[in-house]
């Protein structure tokens, strides 16, 4: 056997002589190209998990070793002092009387450690602007999916597609099948549609619930791809595609009697299914909302204890501090902010107030966008695809003709040109019109849901009363009525999913 130091020497020499790889340059260029397409994660998420914490350097290890050494010495000294002190207290006869206070250390209780508190920049409320661009018609391209209920609120719901210049056509369900089909959501590439289905109609108990995925061709015809069973009991699930289209998240939710005699939706679990393989991940409920990170690797889930950011692959949840009891959430396209509403329930009696905030995942702090508004129900925050706008719903709080307009719901569009403007609260605010003229007809827009066009320039306003209108939020185009039906789904069961209606592009 060779001596140990000889093996060490041979090993070091061999490792340092190991030949370099032959294809390094090509592989390195691949890495450069791959990373150029990626955006670094926000600081709070990037640093979550032990693997991502930067490893100690040599100097800090030396410092830590010295600190450890000092701690050990201090502990040893403390032990000696404690033992000696005990002997003094236990054996006073050996050392004489102890005067009060002399053997007792002075008050050494540590100073209280200030608890971290989220920074909330106090913002002056921007003045509402009621001007909207005047009126040439916008071009609406691509299929838009929607749900109808053929005979009232508790009736059979089906899925339709519509696009500009054509009559709507049904792609799922029939007037008499007693099957609910709801919550259509186009995949990010616009080629597939996912929706929930279940036997049974309306608020009655459902059975055989499933998530359905179909291909949609250019002519708007649907071809079944797969069904993901959800079981008996839950309402038809509402799908939310991951931005890369590889995953579908949906809540498994039941409608149950509430304490006030009404019905409430409770979420058993949030389930994530891989679109291609059918592989599943499940996160326990209850939850009030969820949304994907822009990189599709994480799902933010609003739970009673806070907004939990779950990673899909390695399951390392991160709970954002001070975000308990949040209602609805929306993750900004650049990944830095999670917009959320809080205090929603408190406003039912007009005694409380809701607030709209951003959680800044770089700074680990909240930014208040609106610290007090009223809202009964409706649209939580929804980011535009470009991240320049954020839309939400609130009750009107101004005077019109000298009277409060409390029963009027406003759709509010906040705009900021860049990330830093959001971070500093430098945004502007506009309110969508309550109605507009379509030819000679005035179209009401009491808000039910909204969906952004893929370019972030138009909002699809899905209104109570059955109007689906395209509202431009930039440029000088005019609102346009796309569809007016009195059987559109108009009842909010509070299912936790952002409205996703705007679909396939031609």
């Amino acid at each position: 056997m060779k001596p140990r130091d000889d093996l060490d020497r041979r090993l070091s020499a061999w490792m340092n002589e190991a030949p370099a790889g032959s294809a390094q340059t090509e592989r390195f260029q691949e890495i450069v190209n791959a990373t150029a397409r990626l955006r670094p994660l926000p600081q709070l998420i990037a640093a979550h998990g032990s693997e991502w914490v930067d490893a100690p350097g040599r100097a800090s290890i030396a410092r830590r070793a010295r600190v450890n050494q000092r701690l050990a010495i201090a502990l040893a000294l403390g032990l000696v002092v404690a033992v000696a002190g005990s002997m003094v207290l236990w054996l006073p006869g050996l050392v004489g009387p102890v005067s009060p206070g002399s053997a007792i250390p002075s008050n050494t209780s540590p100073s209280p450690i200030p608890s971290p508190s989220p920074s909330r920049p106090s913002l002056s409320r921007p003045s509402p602007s009621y001007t909207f661009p005047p009126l040439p018609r916008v071009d609406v391209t691509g299929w838009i999916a929607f749900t109808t209920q053929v005979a009232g609120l508790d009736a059979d719901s089906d899925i339709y597609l519509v696009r500009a210049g054509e009559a709507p056509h049904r792609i799922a369900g029939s007037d008499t099948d007693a099957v609910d089909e709801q919550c259509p959501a186009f995949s990010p590439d616009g080629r597939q549609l996912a929706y929930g289905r279940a036997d049974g109609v309306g608020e009655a108990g459902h059975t055989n619930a499933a998530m359905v995925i179909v291909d949609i061709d250019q002519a708007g015809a649907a071809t079944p791809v797969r069904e993901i069973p959800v079981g008996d009991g839950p309402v038809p699930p509402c799908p939310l595609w991951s931005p890369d289209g590889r995953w579908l998240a949906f809540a498994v939710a039941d409608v149950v009697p509430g304490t006030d005699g009404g019905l409430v939706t409770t979420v058993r679990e949030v389930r994530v299914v891989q679109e291609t393989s059918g592989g599943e991940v499940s996160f326990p409920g209850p939850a009030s909302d969820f949304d994907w990170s822009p990189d599709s690797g994480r799902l933010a889930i609003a739970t009673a204890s806070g907004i939990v950011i779950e990673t899909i692959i390695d399951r390392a949840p991160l709970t954002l501090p001070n975000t308990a009891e949040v209602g609805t959430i929306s993750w900004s396209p650049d990944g830095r902010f999670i917009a959320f509403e809080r205090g929603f329930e408190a406003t039912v009696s007009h005694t409380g107030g809701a607030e709209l905030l951003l959680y800044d995942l770089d700074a680990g702090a909240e930014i208040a966008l609106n610290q007090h508004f009223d809202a009964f129900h409706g649209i939580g925050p929804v980011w535009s695809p470009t991240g320049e706008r954020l839309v939400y719903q609130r009750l009107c709080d101004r005077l019109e003709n000298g009277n409060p307009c409390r029963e009027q719901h406003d759709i509010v569009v906040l705009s900021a040109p860049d990330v830093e403007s959001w971070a500093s609260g430098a945004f502007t605010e506009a309110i969508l019109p309550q109605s507009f003229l379509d030819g000679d007809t005035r179209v009401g827009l009491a808000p039910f849901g909204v969906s952004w066009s893929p370019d972030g320039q138009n909002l699809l306003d899905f209104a109570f009363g059955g109007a689906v209108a395209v509202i431009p939020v930039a440029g000088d185009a005019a609102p346009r009525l796309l569809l007016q039906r009195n059987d559109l789904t108009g009842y909010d069961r509070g299912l936790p999913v952002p409205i996703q209606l705007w679909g396939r592009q031609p």
Partner: protein
Amino acid sequence: VGRDLIERAVAGDHDAFVSLAGMAYERLDRLARLILRDEDAAADAVQEALTAAWLHIRAVRDPERFDGWLNRLTVHAAYREARRRRVRLVEIRVPQLDLADARDGVGAVDARDQLDRAFRRLNPQQRAVLVAHHYLELSDFEASALLGVPVGTVKSRLNRATIALRAAIEADDRTPGVATKVPA
């Protein structure tokens, strides 16, 4: 490594990150190849590590720790790559013709080959701890941070890896006609 480059990369400057990655690439590639003993697997591990480094660049708080952080991401990526390509043990029988002469003639090259064969018999964790000490020349404390295990585990793992390596060399001495290829 330039503090300024690291700070620029942390602020989201991709060009600065590419410069840093370029400076570290050869070291990381060698680190991964020593652990994985497979060139393609090592390249995949380094790509995974550098991609993760860019995604998590804002986690870097102390520029002094940047190199150690990259090393650690690479070691963990190598472990994952090893699991993915797990354990296909292929024994290649080499004809035992004129072995004594061949060994005498090859000399130092043969000694390196023997070390290579013995090293391949270790598992990735054992290779990693030997690489930490003999290639990166880290202390037990530093190796602990690199490998994500306690210092005591580093010491015991290093001891076991050295014993295993020595045993593998001795076994190779006894059966010089058998080469074992173990892509881990």
